[in-house]
């Protein structure tokens, strides 16, 4: 049965159980909020969403007020706005807001290119969160031009001792969103409100580090923080991204949707889409490690062939040259002597083409992990096309020719004969089947470094040069059509606890992750818990 209420003179319909804030938002009526967020339980702390109910007493907060049949609500009377303006001024009195009252602010807005890093945040222009800050949006809406109440800078020490997170609680407005995300939605309870009254502060139990407090560095606290109090180290100062692309993380098979921000053709920050509620799947790898993982200067850029001039070395060559060379070599072996090693990090398209390749030239000698590789070795293969690095290469006794496709030089003794530089999942488009058999969309965010190519394209061109049929596709879309016409492929799954990508230990490229893993190893040793505390 439809229920009706009246907001600002407008008749609106609502359902039993909705709050006045939800009803107003759906009806397109704006009520200012700071501590409320659709994906968090409301607590009514900021007092900005207060409304005037006819026949009621005082000003209740609309974020928890249940809508009732026949309620008459006014959301923006002059008195409400006046009280809101004062509340916002009180917030600004204890939040570094010098820029808001500075005489030079108009010139600054015209002449400065944006916010800049300084020793301490004293105002908007020294804060990395300026463009996204929700307080600034409210200042604009309520037209606050001055702060008439005693100003206080809490002078709390900056908290920078944990990896991945930078915390400046001088900016914190105690909306408790981070705590509600961590405690109520995700259940980690790594942080809470400590002390009380005016000294209230967000913190951990007994002020231990986040590494010890049960924090899994999923980063959702940063995602929900309305101010610049919580930021991701190394990702905050790039300003407005050139491009933000929604894609899927491939560091394991959960298929978490992520938004990658790119600047200067590099991924600089990764975060969940705003609308998505926090899910326990988000982990430290996808949230914080992707930029450092993808942007290492040692990324393989050019195909190489190992030649001996004075000593054995890899020499960069063109793709045509390396393909020709490789094709020649492959012709010299029998199918049962050739093996293919699939990396579970590869996208579906690459796996499909590699399977087809394996069928055509290697008698289905296709394996998906180290176990399979050992098996191949025992059958005496002489050629291996590997798409990830493993220390087992040296254990293949009769190995004559090793083709290695990867993104970084192998951390293990490099015995590859040719190297194919390939793209990471942020550098190509395609699909990835996850562990619930859903096909996730992978969207290209940035261009790959140097001449690196998507793996499917490498296989396609190599096969064509070898004269094989059925490998000619001019776009990934054509390839996807072909895949849909065929039997489903075998999809290797990557568990969440895997800390490798394409065989490269992620912590080799991301030093903060090394710190995190060391700390967790020490803590978890006796508890026998997972590194990532997975509980789905």
């Amino acid at each position, binding site marked *: 049965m439809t229920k009706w209420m009246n907001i600002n003179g407008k008749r609106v319909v609502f359902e039993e159980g909705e709050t006045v804030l939800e009803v107003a938002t759906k009806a397109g009526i704006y009520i200012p909020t700071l501590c409320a967020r659709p994906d968090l339980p409301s607590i009514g702390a900021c007092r900005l969403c207060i409304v005037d109910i006819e026949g009621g007493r005082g000003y209740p907060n609309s974020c928890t007020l249940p809508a009732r049949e026949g309620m008459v609500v006014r959301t923006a009377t002059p008195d409400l706005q006046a*009280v809101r303006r*004062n509340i916002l001024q009180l917030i600004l009195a204890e939040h570094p807001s010098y820029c808001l009252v500075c005489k030079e602010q108009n010139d600054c807005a015209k002449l400065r290119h944006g916010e800049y890093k300084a020793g301490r945040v004293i105002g908007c222009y020294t804060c990395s969160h300026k463009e996204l800050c929700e307080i600034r949006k409210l200042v604009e809406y309520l037209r606050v031009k001055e702060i*008439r109440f005693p100003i206080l800078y809490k002078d709390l020490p900056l908290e920078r001792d944990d990896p991945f997170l930078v915390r400046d609680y001088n900016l914190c407005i105690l909306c408790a969103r981070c705590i509600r995300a961590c405690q109520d939605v995700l259940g980690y309870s790594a942080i809470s409100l400590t002390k009380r*009254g005016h000294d*209230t502060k967000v913190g951990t139990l007994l002020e231990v580090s986040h590494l010890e407090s049960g924090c899994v560095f999923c980063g959702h606290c940063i995602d929900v923080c309305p101010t610049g109090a919580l930021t991701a180290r190394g990702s905050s100062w790039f300003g407005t991204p050139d491009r933000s692309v929604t894609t899927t993380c491939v560091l394991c098979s959960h298929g978490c949707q992520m938004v990658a921000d790119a600047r200067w053709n590099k991924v600089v920050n990764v975060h969940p889409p705003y609308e998505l509620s926090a899910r326990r799947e988000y982990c430290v790898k996808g949230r914080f490690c992707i930029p450092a993982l993808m942007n290492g200067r040692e990324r393989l850029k050019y195909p190489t062939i190992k030649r001996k001039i004075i000593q054995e070395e890899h020499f960069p060559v063109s793709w045509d040259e390396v393909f020709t060379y490789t094709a020649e070599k492959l012709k010299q072996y029998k199918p049962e002597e050739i093996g293919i090693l699939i990396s579970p990090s590869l996208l579906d398209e690459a796996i499909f083409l590699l399977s087809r390749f394996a069928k055509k030239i290697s008698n289905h000698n296709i394996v998906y992990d180290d176990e399979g590789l050992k098996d191949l070795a025992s059958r005496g293969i002489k050629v291996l096309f590997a798409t990830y690095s493993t220390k087992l290469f040296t254990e293949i006794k009769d190995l004559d020719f090793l083709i290695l496709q990867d993104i970084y030089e192998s951390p293990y003794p490099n015995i590859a004969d040719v190297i194919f530089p390939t793209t990471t999942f942020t550098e190509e488009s395609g699909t990835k089947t996850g562990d619930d058999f859903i096909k996730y969309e992978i969207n290209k965010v940035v261009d790959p470094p140097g001449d690196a190519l998507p793996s499917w394209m490498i296989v396609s061109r190599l096969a064509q040069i070898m004269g094989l049929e059925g490998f000619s596709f001019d776009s990934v879309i054509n390839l996807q059509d072909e895949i849909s016409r065929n039997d489903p492929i075998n999809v290797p799954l990557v568990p969440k606890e895997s800390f490798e990508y394409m065989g490269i230990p992620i912590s080799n490229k991301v030093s903060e992750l090394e710190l995190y893993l060391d700390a967790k190893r020490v803590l978890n040793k006796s508890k026998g818990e997972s590194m990532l505390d997975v509980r789905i």
Partner: protein
Amino acid sequence: MMPPHDTSQIKILICQGTGCLSSKSDEIKEEFEDQLKNFNLQDKIKVDFTGCHGFCAQGPIVIIEPEGVMYSKVKTTFVNKIVESHLKLGKPVYEYFYKDPKTNQPIARYHDIPFYNKQTRMILGSCGHINPENINDYIERGGYSGLKRALKMPPEEIIQIIKDSGLRGRGGAGFSTGLKWSFCRDAPGDEKYIICNADEGDPGAFMDRSILEADPHSVLEGMIIGAYAIGARHGIIYVRAEYPLAVKRFTHAVKIAKEKGFLGENILNSNFSLDISIHEGAGAFVCGEETALMASIEGHRGNPRPRPPFPATSGLWGNPTNINNVKTWASASWIFKHGWEEFHKIGVEHASGTAIFSLTGKVNNLGLIEVPMGTPLRKIVYEIGGGILNNRNFKAVQTGGPSGGCLPPSHLDSPVDYETMAASGSIMGSGGMIVLDDTDCMVKLAHYFLTFTQAESCGKCVPCRIGTRAMLLVLDRIIKGEGEDKDLMLLEELAYTVKMGSLCALGQTAPNPVLTTLKYFREEYQAHIFEKQCPAKDCQDLIDYTIDENLCNGCTLCAGNCPVNAISGQKGNIHHIHSDICVKCGICYSSCPRKAIFKQDRNLQLVES
């Protein structure tokens, strides 16, 4: 002289409420027992202890029944004389009686003491007259007869009786108790709770403590009746941790009541079962607010939650919960013992029964008083309170503690009840009442209360956490003599923001002391700000202590007592106070035998006090 009497039923009742206990009334009890043996009276005269009389400034108190004689400020050294002279020889010791503050004449019987006989002690009726740890004393006076009566009625009838009695919540909000019980009864859910709010956080208030220490069963019985009416099977009392004796006495009462079958499974064969547990607070005033209290019981931070939903529909762990103050539960058991009509007869139309106040400040008689609702303030201050101390002038009375406000002399004839208090800008609150004279600065008083609420703010919502602090900073300036022209307007605007914006009643009422003092004593604020003067000569930074050269005889008593050596002068010569060293403690002021020390405005010449 009193005639000799039959000693066979004499009882000596020694107060062992927290106040008297801290003055060693337990030793007095032992001394009485020893002295009775000394004079061989131990078989005829019984010694027992009671809870608080509410007249703690006169403690330790000893009552001799059945004469009704009261000895006050008793010392162990008095006991021998009392036993020998009064109990053995029939000659009361007049010098140990309470003395009328005006005439200084001793008054023998407590019934004759105006402080007592001008009160209507109903809820406090047994306090100080029964042993709180002896359930038989309670039963002898009709205790648990109300419960027996109630258990024979259908729950709806019980609720109707409470509604008809006109009982309103005694925690300060004054909501109809019967209506509140009916909301909880009607709320859907099988698991219901009742809670007794014994967090009593107002500074100086001790009514709830007194009742729990002196007559715990009156509260317990009310809770059992209420639980039965509502359909709750669990009850919790939330007592502040600073009341260990109240916790002890109530715990004991629960244990004994259970043994006698008034609590526990199948109470008095009615098929109704109830368990009651005790939960202690941990030093937070905000936990007296019902939603913060429930959060605290649940193990969370004591932060209030927005209402609706109200506890009656969704309270403890989401279950329908009825919370009432100690005095409300005690009133419920009174109503079922004496009948709702008797309760309704007392008080006024819209507020029946009595109100209990903790009367303190500049009156002659300090303590707990119980008067019918609607009693004029004048009667409380002058007849019961015995008038202003030292014959000074009445200036104002602060009601409702840190959530309340001040009322000036023009309001002396106001009847004390929920609506009239609220109409004048104050609140009745949980019952604090502080009387002020012309030496009390109203600005300093507002500052004192705001310091309290600021310190006790839980910190959850912006207006209270930051707004009360901003107000306090402005008041700090004003009482230091650094007030600025715009300060009054700033205070009023901040007060309005905090009042309208705060989440819970702590924040919403925190500006009340400031708002009422601004309303009735604005000229004092103006004097502080524009003339840098404190008319009451109370604010330390605006006064100087100075010695009148004409009266000083150089006795050097003041210099000897000064804790910071701010007074110089040779014995026999006129002394001088150095105002830059002086910390305005006032010790010299009270030690001078010739009253030669005066308080003067800091920047002006000597003004006679």
